[in-house]
């Protein structure tokens, strides 16, 4: 039988108490920040959505639907609709895996006709002051506006294409250009499937909304969180 003397007991007890208090603090903090973090992320997404979608009359976040790209991968698509509820553009996140340091996430808005409305970079780890021009350089970001697969050479100028590279940073814009082109190709091949998925999802959303409204009336509680 192993026995511990008083000093050893004190050591174990003090570490236990420190760890316990720290765990409690972190649990509380996690609970307190859970909602604000989700809210901040929604706000950031909304801020980018406003920039990449033409004037929508709906709530693209609410009308979001998941589109199965392959068996393993689904894409979250945010539709933009006009007054009559017709889809005029889609926005989705395209990932460039080959940035200078890690992946670059790009939110791209594309009209139903296949032209780019605008693109915005939502997260990246590129070198500050060099590659991060992709978030700040408005002239460069605007050079994507109205581009289609046909009217544009999808390379940076160094590679004989239509897009500027930055001084000291070619890898970053090259990765973004490639990813946006892939996004457009994806749209072209899946155009009809996308519309079908949108219509199917829309029915589900509407049913859920009706159900939520009904629940609200009967229970007087807001249980209407639709995904």
């Amino acid at each position, binding site marked *: 039988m192993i026995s511990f003397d008083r*000093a050893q007991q004190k050591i174990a007890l003090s570490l236990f108490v420190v760890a316990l208090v720290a765990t409690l603090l972190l649990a509380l903090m996690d609970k307190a920040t859970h909602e604000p973090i989700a809210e901040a992320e929604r706000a950031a997404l909304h801020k980018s959505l406003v920039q990449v979608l033409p004037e929508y009359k709906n709530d693209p976040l609410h009308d979001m639907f998941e589109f199965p790209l392959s068996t393993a991968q689904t894409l979250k698509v945010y539709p933009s609709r006009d007054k009559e509820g017709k889809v005029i553009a889609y926005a989705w996140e395209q990932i460039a895996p080959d940035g200078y340091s890690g992946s670059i996430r790009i939110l791209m808005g594309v009209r139903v006709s296949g032209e780019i409305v605008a693109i915005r970079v939502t997260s990246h780890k590129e070198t500050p*002051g060099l590659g991060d021009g992709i978030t700040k350089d408005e002239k460069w970001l605007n050079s994507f506006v109205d581009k289609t697969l046909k009217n544009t050479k999808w390379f940076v100028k160094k590679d004989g294409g239509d897009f500027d590279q930055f001084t000291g940073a070619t890898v970053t814009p090259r990765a973004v250009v490639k990813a946006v082109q892939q996004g457009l190709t994806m749209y072209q091949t899946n155009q009809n499937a996308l519309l079908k998925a949108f219509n199917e999802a829309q029915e589900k959303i509407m049913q859920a909304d009706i159900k939520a409204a009904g629940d609200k009336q009967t229970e007087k509680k807001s249980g209407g969180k639709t995904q």
Partner: protein
Amino acid sequence: MTPSNENGLSKQEIFADGFWHNNTIFAQLLGMCPLLGVTTSAENGFWMGFATLCVLVGSNLIVSVVRDYIPSEVRIPAYIVIIASLVTVVDLSMNAWMHDMYLVLGLFIPLIVVNCAILGRAEAFASKNSISDSFMDAVGMGFGFIFALVLLGAVREIFGQGQLFGFAIFGSDYPDVLMFILPPGAFIALGFILAGVNLLNLRLKAKKEAEAAAVTDESVVAS
């Protein structure tokens, strides 16, 4: 003010020691990872320094409160748990309420845990001194750290992009000097700043000695 800590320093002396004489960056050369990593602009430097200040004040306060209850054999793991928890609190708070800055500083916030300056203050100061002295030490060290980060960030932003806190100061046709934005620029700028600080300290020391010499001369004449 009555000296209450083991070195017999007043609150002002503790602050001055942390802010200048024993500055984390200029004198101890600690915390180089965030220093070189995020100081591409003055604003980034400030918020990184501010996050570190929060952790430093919290850890110094808690450590000086619990110092008598933690057996010395396990004090280091206990301090690390305290510091890591505080860093997580700051990390979550910034993610929730300063989302834009959180995206910029990203990885460097969790890395405050391994900033040896913080464990260093907990071990070298807070574990031996009163709560109020430890608080003052953390405030002095923290503001000294902010000062160093903002100074280096400002130098790199001015020379690298011709801006300060995002405002153009050399006009829009300033040719960006990329080297200052890249890591080598951080080392070079830091080297020049350290040289400047040392020069200033030498001047101050010489002046003090000259004054002291003048006083002794007078006393010799008087006797």
